[in-house]
Structure formats: structure tokens, C-alpha cells
């Protein structure tokens, strides 16, 4: 019986066919130039200290440029800081050490990343200490800072694809000119500078969110760059390293998943807020088409919509409970609504 089964041709589904194809895929070993390009990421021996000095100086300068750019709310300056930042090097080094099971290089990479993280936060704090009190209002943070305190799943997507690009570019010297683009896309130093600034301003929650953005970028880059390096043929040299590869990659994946949890929650809340805001606009239109929304604050907190509206219209407003009930029906949950109504009247006066 078992023989007859074994003799039958195996029928595969489409997914099974793709799986079989992927299973047969075995990348060729990287050439010597590619290996050298990756090993150069983390200098050893007598090159170590000059590298660390250079790394620390560039990180401090980059964080300083980023912090001033953030406080000045200048996107162009912040992008400039990303180009100066050297953090991508040890991060890709950590990815390579992960897939080649080189624990010494991995440990060195982690220490250098920790050094860069500390320096960037410290510089952000110092710049804020010197300048922030004079140039910004903590109740109304610049957009460049604010945008780094609301990480979401899109940021995770950016970091994963940017990390994959870095993993692809690094072993290919012919494509190395594209690497600054990766640095700009993933932006490691600006979130750290934001952590420093917001810490100095006493905005603990914003600090945590900005650090979460940094951790997102860090974990996602290490993970996806490792994956691409693996696909490029980088792998452990010995049998023991190959056996531990699964554990190593799973560890980086767990790190990504850990940051993905708060990001998912945050993204869900952003989506809920967007849905609520569109529900509010539609309900106001339905309530009174002649009403103009001058200002709208709508957030979902604890499953409840909290809506604060400043509207203008002519004549007496229609009963506001109708608007609240309509928003509630569209949003699908309880609503706390505050409406300030302004009489929108035009006065024209001429004197001669």
C-alpha cells in the first residue's frame, strides 16, 4: 500500500510549487569584494580607535544639526543631518554579523550603536538646554519634532524596506552611491535628537514615542538587512553557526514584533481618529450644510469620541444633540461633543 502511494506523482498546489522553487534556491557565495565591503563596516585592530573618534564626532555633529533643524522646524536641515549621520554603518555591520554568526563583530556593533544612541540623545538634550527655551513653546512643538513623536506602522514599513535596500547596496560597491538615500529614508539621528530635546523639555511621553520610532528603525533595519544579506549569500562559515542562524534571525524578528505591537496600537488609534474626523465633517454637513467648521479637534480616547468644534453659521444653530447623535451613529460609539458657535455675519462699512 505504501509503495503504491510512493509511486504516485506528487501533485502540488500553486503555493506548493512556489515553495518548492524557493526551497531549491541556494544563493552563490558572495565574491571577495562583497565580503570586504561588508567587513569594512566595522574596523578592527589599530583602525578601531580612529574609527570610534570619527564615529562619535560625526554622530555628535549630525545630532547637533538635527536638533537645531528640529527646533527651527526645517525639514531641509534635518535631511542634511541624516546625510552626516554614521549610525547606519554599525547597524548594517550588526546585520552582517548576525547572518555570519560572528559574535565578536556583533558585540562590537551593538556597543558602537549604543555609543551613537547615547551621544545623539545627549547632544539633542544639550542643544535643547541651550536653545529650546528661547525658540519654542512646549504647548506647540514644531511639526518636525511632533512628527517624530507619533510613530506608526508606516514607519515600520519604511524601516524594513530601507534596511533591505541597505543590505542590498552594502556588498555592491557599484551601487554604494545610493546608500545616502537609505539614510535619508530611515532617519536614525533625528528621532534620537527628538528624544533628547523632549527629555530636556520634560515631555516624557513624547520622548518615549520618539525612542520607539528609533527602536523601530533599528530593529527593522537589522532584521531586513540581515534577510537580504542572507539572500546575497552571506551565511555562517561553520556548522554550529548555521544551526544557530535560525535563533539569531528569530531574535531580531522578535525585536521587530515587540516594537510592532505599540506601533499597531498607535496606527489603529490614528485610523480611528481619521475615521472620527471624517464622521464629524459628514455629520456637520448633514446637521446644517451652511455651517462652516473653523476648528476641529476630534480624538478617540478609551473607545469614546471626544470632539471639540468651533463652527460658524448664520442664525440660530439647530439643536446640537442631533449633531452628537449623528456623529455617534457614524462613528459607532459614545461621543462627548463640545460646540462653540459663532454668528457668521458680514458687516460692510464705508466712510468718505
Amino acid at each position, binding site marked *: 500500500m505504501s509503495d503504491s502511494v510512493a509511486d504516485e506523482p506528487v501533485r502540488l498546489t500553486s503555493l506548493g510549487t512556489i*515553495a518548492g522553487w*524557493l*526551497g531549491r*534556491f*541556494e544563493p552563490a557565495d558572495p565574491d571577495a569584494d562583497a565580503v570586504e565591503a561588508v567587513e569594512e563596516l566595522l574596523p578592527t585592530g589599530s583602525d578601531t580607535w580612529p574609527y570610534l573618534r570619527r564615529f562619535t564626532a560625526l554622530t555628535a555633529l549630525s545630532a547637533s544639526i538635527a536638533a537645531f533643524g528640529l527646533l527651527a522646524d526645517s525639514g531641509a536641515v534635518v535631511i542634511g543631518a541624516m546625510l552626516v549621520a554614521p549610525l547606519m554603518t554599525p547597524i548594517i555591520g550588526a546585520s552582517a554579523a548576525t547572518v555570519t554568526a560572528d559574535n565578536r563583530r556583533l558585540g562590537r556593533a551593538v556597543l558602537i550603536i549604543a555609543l551613537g544612541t547615547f551621544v545623539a540623545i545627549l547632544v539633542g538634550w544639550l542643544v535643547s538646554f541651550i536653545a529650546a527655551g528661547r525658540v519654542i513653546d512646549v504647548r506647540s512643538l514644531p511639526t518636525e519634532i511632533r512628527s517624530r513623536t507619533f510613530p506608526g*506602522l508606516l514607519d*515600520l*514599513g519604511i524601516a*524594513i524596506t530601507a534596511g533591505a535596500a541597505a543590505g542590498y547596496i552594502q556588498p555592491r560597491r557599484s551601487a554604494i552611491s545610493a546608500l545616502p538615500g537609505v539614510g535619508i529614508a530611515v532617519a536614525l539621528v533625528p528621532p534620537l535628537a527628538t528624544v533628547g530635546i523632549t527629555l530636556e523639555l520634560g515631555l516624557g511621553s513624547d520622548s518615549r514615542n520618539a525612542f520607539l520610532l528609533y527602536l523601530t528603525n533599528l530593529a527593522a533595519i537589522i*532584521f*531586513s538587512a540581515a*534577510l537580504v544579506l*542572507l*539572500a546575497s549569500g552571506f*551565511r555562517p562559515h561553520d556548522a554550529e553557526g*548555521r*544551526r544557530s*542562524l*535560525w535563533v539569531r*534571525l*528569530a531574535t531580531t*524578528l522578535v525585536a*521587530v*514584533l515587540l516594537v*510592532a505591537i505599540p506601533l*499597531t496600537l498607535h*496606527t*489603529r488609534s490614528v*485610523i*480611528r481618529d481619521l*475615521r472620527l474626523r471624517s464622521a464629524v465633517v459628514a455629520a456637520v454637513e448633514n446637521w446644517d450644510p451652511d455651517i462652516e467648521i473653523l476648528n476641529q479637534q476630534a480624538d478617540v480616547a478609551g473607545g469614546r469620541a471626544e470632539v471639540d468644534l468651533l463652527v460658524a453659521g448664520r442664525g440660530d444653530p439647530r*439643536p*446640537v*444633540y442631533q449633531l*452628537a*447623535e449623528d456623529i*455617534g*451613529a*457614524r*462613528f*459607532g*460609539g*459614545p461621543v*462627548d461633543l463640545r460646540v462653540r458657535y459663532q454668528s457668521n455675519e458680514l458687516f460692510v462699512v464705508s466712510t468718505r
Partner: protein
Amino acid sequence: MRAVRRCGWFLLVALVGIAATACAGDGGPLDESTVTVFGPYVGADADRFAEVIADFESSTGIDVAYTGSVDFVSDLRQRALGNQQPDVAMVPQPGVVDTLVDDEVLEPLEIDTVRAVREGFGDTALEATPWNLRFAVPYRSNVKSLVWYRPDVFAENGWEVPQTLDELNSLANDIDAGDTMVPWCFSVFAGSSTGWPATDWIEDLVLRRAGVDVYEQWAQGELSWQAREIHDAFEEFRELVVDNERSAGGLRSVLQTEVSSAGDPLFADTPGCAMYKQASFAEDWFPGGTTVGPDADVDYFVLPTEAKDETSLVTAGDAAVAFADRPNVNRFMAFLASADGGRAWADEGGFISRRTDVDLDQYYDDADAGVAALLQTRTTARFDASDMLPAAVGSDLLWSQITDWLNGSLNLDDLLASLDEALGIED
């Protein structure tokens, strides 16, 4: 190499998993079996009433949708006359209920519900009730005659809780003469209901200075607003509380500060006022974590009367009325008429009832139990007179005109004459 291949699969699946996000579902229109309730509870009070509703929903499976509005009285009037009635309304004014009865828009209560009210409240509590018990289920009660103060501030300044109205006047004068704070926290701004806190002061003074009989005549519309007793109460209120910047922030603050924020200066590190006369529900407006009691952050005394051994209370409260005669609606009304109807709110705090079948130890804290005890033990307790007036006067004209009088655009004689005219009372 097999390990490497397995890794590829594992990570591919993981990447897809990371990219996935979930979305919440949409709400839909209300089912026709849903009981719609309209009331004045918003914010924290709406949350607490939602707990009551959840109790009902879990025990019956009937859905209830609640909407609360600070413009409740005018909105309800509009809904009642515009064929947009809710199934049930929680009405804070007996006069509004009487107007709705006259408009023939309310459904009478089922006999069992009426019986449950009578048994739950007892004859004494219902003896002087202003509610039309054929249509209304009395629900939440509150005491208007409380004066909140900080025991630490009183002790620091050597002030004693006044035992008579004259002692209160002396205390207010002493505080006014000092340079640390003014005697009162007070404001009247409440959107379309602006003015109501002033009516509470005047009612308390009429009850104390003129006595129960005069108060009842006045509340029933049988005494002219131009009568000496009423005129004097208006004058005394203005002199005691408003004139000469006796309220924190002066007249400007009286007219422009939200009622719910009027007591804020009492709690400041450097207090802006020494006393804050406001109803028992003002506890909801105090800063979070405020404790109430003789040795706590804040305490209260009942606004004194002329004699030491007397106490009088002006009370107020809400009652439920039904606009629809459907089984689900009747079950909800019966629930509100039972002791269970307020239990969830009492558990959260801020719910006091005149029911006699609720023990004092069932209240949220000593402050709630203390006010409930006041309601159960004081015999001189009369309902808020302005709440008993027809809605067009008690919830509209009186509030707006008393505000005009405070801001100086209307003199007292004209105010009182216009109220007499609106109520059809001849001087």
C-alpha cells in the same frame, strides 16, 4: 543549508504578518426596540448614568441609547413639540413636566411603576413632592443649600462655621475686610442656562427669611415677585455675594466664568475665596482626588437660618418621564422606579435619593451619605421654586433677566414686574 532555507520561509511569513493591520467596525442605525433616553447628564454624569443603563441592559437584554445635553430643557421642548420625542426623558424641573403634561405628550406610568415609587419613597418623602407622580418617576435628588469651605483655611484664619444668617453676614464682612481673599466663589455662566445659580441663592434666602409658607406661595405662583419678601431676598443676595467685589474675580468673573469652574479659587494654593455655595452635585466639579469631610480637603455646612436650632433645605432633583407606551420603555421606567435603578450610579458616587429603601451605608462615600441623611432627617425641605415654574419662565425668562439684573442692564423693579407679568400675577 536547510536551516537557512527554513529561515527564509519563516521570515517571509513574519514580514507579511507585520504588515497586517486591523480596523474597527462601523456603527449602525438604532434598532426600533432600542429605548432612547434624553437627559441633562453630560460628561462624568453621563458615564455614571451609562452604568445604570448597562445594569438594565444586562438584566433585560433591551438596548438603551442615551443622549445628554446642557441645553436639555430647550432641546426637550423642541423635541416634544416637533415630533422628535425620545422614549424617555430625565427632567430636572417639575415645571417642565407639568408643561409636557399640559401639552399631552407624556404617557402615564403603569400602575405597578406608580406603586413601586410610593413604596420606595414612602409617604413622608412624597408628601411635599413637586412631581406629578402619575407621569414622573422621581430619580436623583440633590441639596442646593450647601456652603463648601476648606477646614484648613478656616482654622488658619480662626474662622468658625456660622450658625445663623447674621453670623454668616459677619463672617463675610470679616473676610471682606481682610486682604487675603474674598468671601465667595460664585458665577452664573452656563450657556443657554446662564443665571440659574443666582436663583438658588435667592430661593434659599426667601425660605430662611420669609419662612416655609411664603416660600410655598411664591413657588406655587400665588405670591407676587414684587412682594417685599422676594424683593428683599434679591437685594440681600446682591449685597452679600456680588456687590463690592465680594466674589472671586468680581462681577466680570461672576458673569463669564463657567458655573462648573466657579469653585476653582477655593482650591487654589492661595485661596481666592473662603466659601462656595453650591449644590451637592458640585462635588463632581472639584479637582480630582478632593476629599470631603471635617478633616479632609473640603467640607460643607448648610446655609444657616435666622435661628441657631433651625435648618432649612432647598432641594432639587430629576425625574423620568415617558413619551412612548411600549413594553421596553415601560420596563425601563419600572427599573428606574426600583431601588436597583440608581444603584450603579450610587456605587460610582454623586447619586443621592430620597428613597427610604436605600440604606445610608449603600452610598459611595460619607459625603454622599451625609447629604442623603440631610434629606431623610430635615423636615423643612422644599423643592427649588424656579424649577417648579412653567418652563418658559423658570428655565428661560428668569435666568436671562436675573443675568441682566446682575450685569446692570435691568433694574430690580422691572425684573420682578416682568416675572409677575409672565406668570399672570397681579401685584
